[in-house]
């Protein structure tokens, strides 16, 4: 596989080259400034589509974490499933399945951190197994270039990718950019990524010194994150099973506001609601889905009024077990990447990491 050096001054031309063929999506700095003076970032499409090179300068490749992961480009927060025509006279009407009309432009997702790559792989597994979700699949199987950026250190106090082992990923992307002084080492991880590096003839190959430096950076990454391991991810499913009736659920959930913020920012949350909306003439409309959250009180409530997870601790236990145990039983892997977005968004400091660590202390031996 090809390795090259992407000097800082080459970044605009690199993005321009991508913009010839793709809609480029990358983290941009959001306008709001937080009380501590820091900024937030979110993934946004930069150009209108292939061939348009405007807007590319907004891309930020050195950033701590994006507010949301790129899930929204494959599983939008709100999307129409069907368009229907109603027939006023008690007749069913007719409908069109909109999954057949989904045709995203070729897209280059640039700047994903390893945890976001891992999350996307988990969603691929979920939406692509058993009953395949045609909407997700249509968006995901479009032409796509994934350019990841290595994390050199944890991005926040809340992130726990060190424990989840998602601070580095070996698959699920085409190119990896790793900060090396005044530029990035660009390493190919797929045939598509390799083709791109070969095409970018203005970029110098990674010389021996930089190769060596890159190896050092990777081992520094390993050391830095190894120091941050707070629990054993492999033991999470077992500890969750043993701790099903542990007081930790009540202790932590006591202060939960049931706001669902954790669900909203989670890159591996996929639950959705389905409902109808009609236009003002009530003759046509859409059946659509929106992201839903298992921490919201009404999530498991049925029409008759029974609520199967009425207690906050039941909802918290469900959410955390879903990440660390329930889906592990179905698919053999954890459905949490340790990005810490949920803990950062939580107004009362509830974090899966705290719960995983507590259960390990109580049941891990």
């Amino acid at each position: 596989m090809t390795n090259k050096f992407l000097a800082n001054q080459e970044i605009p031309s690199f993005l321009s080259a991508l913009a010839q063929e793709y809609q480029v999506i990358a983290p941009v700095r959001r306008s709001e400034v937080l009380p501590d003076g820091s900024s937030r970032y979110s993934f946004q499409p930069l150009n209108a589509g292939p061939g348009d090179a405007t807007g590319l300068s907004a891309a930020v490749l050195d950033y701590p974490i994006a507010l949301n992961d790129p899930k929204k480009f494959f599983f939008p927060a709100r999307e129409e499933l069907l368009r229907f025509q109603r027939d006023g006279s008690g007749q069913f009407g007719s409908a069109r399945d909109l999954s057949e009309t989904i045709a995203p432009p070729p897209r280059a997702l640039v700047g994903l951190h390893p945890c976001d790559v891992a999350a996307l792989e988990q969603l691929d597994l979920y939406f692509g197994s058993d009953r395949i979700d045609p909407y997700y699949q249509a968006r995901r199987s479009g032409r796509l270039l994934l350019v990841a950026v290595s994390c050199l250190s944890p991005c926040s106090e809340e992130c726990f990718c060190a424990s989840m082992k998602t601070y580095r990923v070996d698959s699920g992307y085409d190119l990896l950019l790793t900060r090396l002084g005044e530029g990035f080492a660009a390493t190919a991880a797929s045939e598509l990524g390799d083709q791109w590096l070969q095409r970018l003839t203005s970029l110098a190959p990674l010389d021996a010194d930089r190769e060596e430096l890159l190896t050092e950076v990777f081992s520094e990454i390993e050391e830095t994150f190894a120091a941050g391991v707070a629990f054993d991810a492999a033991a999470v499913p077992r500890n969750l099973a043993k701790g099903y009736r542990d007081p930790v659920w009540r202790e932590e959930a006591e202060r939960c506001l049931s706001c669902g913020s954790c669900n909203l920012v989670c890159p591996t949350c996929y639950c959705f609601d389905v409902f109808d909306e009609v236009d003002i003439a009530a003759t046509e409309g859409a059946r659509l889905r929106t992201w839903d959250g298992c921490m919201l009180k009404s999530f498991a409530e049925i029409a008759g009024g029974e609520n199967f997870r009425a207690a906050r601790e039941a909802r918290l236990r469900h959410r955390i077990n879903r990440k660390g145990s329930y889906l592990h039983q179905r698919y053999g892997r954890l459905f949490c990447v340790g990005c810490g977005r949920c803990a950062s968004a939580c107004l009362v400091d509830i974090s899966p990491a705290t719960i995983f660590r507590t259960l390990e202390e109580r049941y891990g031996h």
Partner: protein
Amino acid sequence: MGIKLRHFEPSKVSYLSLPARIESVQKLTRAETLYRIQLCDGRPLGHQPGQFVQVSLFGVGEAPISITSSPTQTPGFELCVRRVGSVTGALARLSEGATLGIRGPFGSGFPVQQLTGRNLVLVAGGLGLAPLRSLINYVLDKRPDFGEVHVVYGTRSPDDILFQRDIISWSTSDIVRFHLTVDIAPVGWRGNVGVVTTLFPRLTVDPDNTSAVIVGPPVMYKFVVRELLEMGVSADQMFLSLERRMKCGLGKCGHCQINQVYVCQEGPCFCYADLADLPEAI
């Protein structure tokens, strides 16, 4: 033992429903109505007792409804619907000849193979009779395949009794023993008064060769299961149908999840012994 999580050959799903026509409408109680429905393309629904469909009305939404008719009783199929939400409210305004959408059938049905050859105690509470009726009439249509059959039905009051035509036929038949109770009765009611378990002393079955199927409101399960265990029916011979919120029916939307299972995929019918794996179930 334990719940087997279902995996499928990967296949694309669709949220489109099949158009279906309401062939007849019969009001059963103040809140419940029975619809006989036929798919417009004339094909049979192809369901198993205990399965459910998503009923779709454009502009209103979809609701999961259990199938109340036995697959042995065709053409068409029946849904018994309690008017309680937006879709069921809109359904209540439809009459014969109207069309609606059907997706499904979904879920696992009652394990009829496993029940074959056994004595059956079929216990329904309230609207639980709707899904259970698909099994009761299936068993009665294949009567020689089963041992002694008891149907036990408890409901709130005489005004809430569902399927009175079926009940008259079950009560007067010598191939099934039917037991009825109500929680509250007006003066003049000559039947049993009390919760459904007050009928259990009348069940004269050999527990070793008996299977029980129970469908009712969540609060009922614990009491019924406890009584049946005391009678000697074993946990792996008890089957329940669980109600949960459902949006997709495809194992994707997450609403019906109980611990690691999706009720729309592994359920809604479960073996009681397996529920030891699912602390959230009942």
